[in-house]
């Protein structure tokens, strides 16, 4: 009795069509539940992936490239296409970042930024009878440790021993396995510059990133420069920022000032982030489709109720209920179905997420990689619930408007 009249009538109508109401409520619940579970899964994966990138790779990489090919002097002399150069052969110089010291000093002055320079080049490593081509990266260990996770990734030996021993080298675990080399073994290294050196394995690292573990060897920057015959040259400067979100801005400033291409981690991974955007769009479309189907269910119940209850509508209008009152009754019916569906959907979503969270795989030794990374966001619950209520409200609105316009005189005449 304490219920408002419109709510009372609405509840009565829904109870009068229990089975149909339950089906449409379940439709909404499934839509909302799947949305919450899938959103937790995808958002969780995306966040985990993003965090892994932020943790493992540098936030900005300055490389010895230019985004625009150099302008030829003859082109700047005759602007506007008066000359058309073809078949240009680039100068046969060896590339590298020339003023690396100035760049490093400048970045060192940015608060919250760490910087490390590297020189990478090809090397052939020989151990016993095995030859393996690898990428030899020259690093400054103390700076490198602050920019990448290399120090944590050392499985055997240590990063510091690069500095304390002559001709020390670090090998990726797979590379070491291929060569059959272990800690302390002595290898022959041959570079394209024609330098041959005997090097000692002072550490073995494992990053989990296959291309690094199978293909990369680290040595001191100075030593790499000598071996590649490129004294004082570096070809990458890597930055790590306290706030990774500042990377695009820092990259842009660095590039504007020094000309070398500076790429933020966002730019490097933009293909993946675009795929994430597409994934999200697909997810929202699928959930949207489920909710549209659920909304059709609600539309159906309410249309049926209105068809069955035209006499009741005529009575209520003759008593003095307004069009707005009638519309409200059926809107409430839709919203009740939507809200109960959303609440049930929250429970379904929570349950599904818990199930996903309990699943374990057997992919890798790292337990972090053997489970789903789930994002328990209240926002997903809010979005799911909001979507459901909006869809239900819209589904109810259309028949409700029609019901409100019913002319009681026609109905009473028809019944007489």
């Amino acid at each position, binding site marked *: *009795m*304490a219920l*408002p*009249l419109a709510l009372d*009538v609405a509840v*009565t109508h829904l*109870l*009068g069509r229990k089975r149909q109401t339950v089906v449409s409520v379940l439709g909404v619940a499934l839509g909302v539940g799947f949305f919450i579970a899938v959103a937790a899964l995808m958002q969780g994966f995306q966040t985990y992936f993003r965090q892994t990138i932020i943790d493992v790779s540098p936030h900005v990489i300055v490389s010895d490239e230019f985004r625009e090919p150099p302008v030829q002097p003859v082109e700047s002399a005759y602007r506007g296409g008066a000359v058309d150069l073809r078949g240009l052969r680039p100068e046969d110089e060896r590339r590298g970042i020339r003023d690396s010291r100035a760049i490093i000093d400048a970045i060192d002055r940015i608060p919250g930024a760490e910087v490390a320079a590297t020189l990478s080049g090809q090397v052939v490593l020989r151990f016993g009878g095995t030859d393996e081509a690898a990428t030899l990266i020259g690093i400054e260990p103390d700076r490198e440790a602050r920019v990448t996770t290399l120090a944590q990734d050392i499985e055997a030996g240590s990063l510091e021993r690069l500095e304390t021993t002559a001709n020390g080298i670090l090998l990726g675990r797979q590379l070491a396995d291929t060569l059959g080399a272990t800690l302390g073994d002595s290898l022959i290294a041959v570079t394209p510059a024609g330098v041959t050196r005997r090097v000692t394995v002072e550490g073995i690292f494992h990053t989990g990133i296959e291309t690094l573990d199978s293909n990369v060897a680290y040595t001191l920057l100075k030593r790499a420069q000598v071996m590649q015959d490129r004294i004082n040259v570096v070809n990458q400067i890597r930055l790590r920022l306290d706030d990774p979100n500042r990377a695009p801005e820092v990259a842009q400033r660095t590039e504007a000032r020094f000309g070398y291409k500076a790429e933020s981690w966002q730019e490097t991974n933009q293909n993946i982030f675009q795929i994430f955007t597409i994934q999200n769009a697909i997810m929202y479309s699928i959930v949207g489709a489920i909710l549209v189907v659920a909304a059709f269910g609600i539309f159906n119940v309410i249309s049926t109720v209105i068809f069955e209850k035209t*006499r*009741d509508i*005529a*009575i*209520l*209008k*003759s*008593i*003095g*209920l*307004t*069009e*707005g*009152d009638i519309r409200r009754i059926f809107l409430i019916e839709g919203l009740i179905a939507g809200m109960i569906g959303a609440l049930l959907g929250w429970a379904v979503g929570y349950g599904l997420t818990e199930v996903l969270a309990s699943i374990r795989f057997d992919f890798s030794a790292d337990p972090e990689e053997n489970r789903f990374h789930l994002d328990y966001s209240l926002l997903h619950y809010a979005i799911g619930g909001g979507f459901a209520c909006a869809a239900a409200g819209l589904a109810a609105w259309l028949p409700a408007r029609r019901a409100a316009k019913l002319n*009681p*005189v026609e109905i*009473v*005449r028809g*019944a*007489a």
Partner: protein
Amino acid sequence: MAPVLEARDVVRVLPGEVPVTLVAGITLSIGAGEFVAITGPSGSGKSSLLYLLGLLDRPTEGAVLVEGRDTGDLSAAEMARLRLEKLGFVFQFHFLLPEFSALANVLIPMRKLGRFGDAEMRDRALALLGRLGLEDQAHKRPDQLSGGQRQRVAIARALANDPKVVLADEPTGNLDTKNAQIVFDIFSGLARDSGTTVVTVTHDEHLAAQATRRVHLVDGRLVDGAAG
């Protein structure tokens, strides 16, 4: 004093390829406490006139006045408000909400009006049902009541907000003689004792004779008893 209900040159034409004239120009004035019986052959426009007087329909020409006030320029919501406060309808087919008990049906107009608290509405509704001899039926649903009882519940609902006018369209059309007489006794009592105006359409000459005034319609026009 202004009449409670007044029709001035009311015409109602249904538009269409062949327009149908339901009411062809009726002037009628009904005062407080009158018990008016509208009679006439089938298709003469009795129901149409009742819908116009009850603000369920709007005239094509002419005006309907309630307590001296022209209703022509009222919005649909304002008409609904007038129906709620001043008018009560009873139809031939009792037209109760089937899922609601007799009591709940009688409560609907009061709940919409919102003038009384929950307890007071309940007391008033039970008192009304008692006045109509239904004190024991308050908690029954319509399908548990007889035809005559249902029609009395419908009358109780029409009276829920103390209307100025009760409008009934062949309220006894589906009732046996005994129940029909009960309904007319109720109407007579209402008009006589509480000054409520009653306008009822009926086919029954014997019942019509009990009204204080008779209005006869033929082809959408008044034939006699039009003055007053």
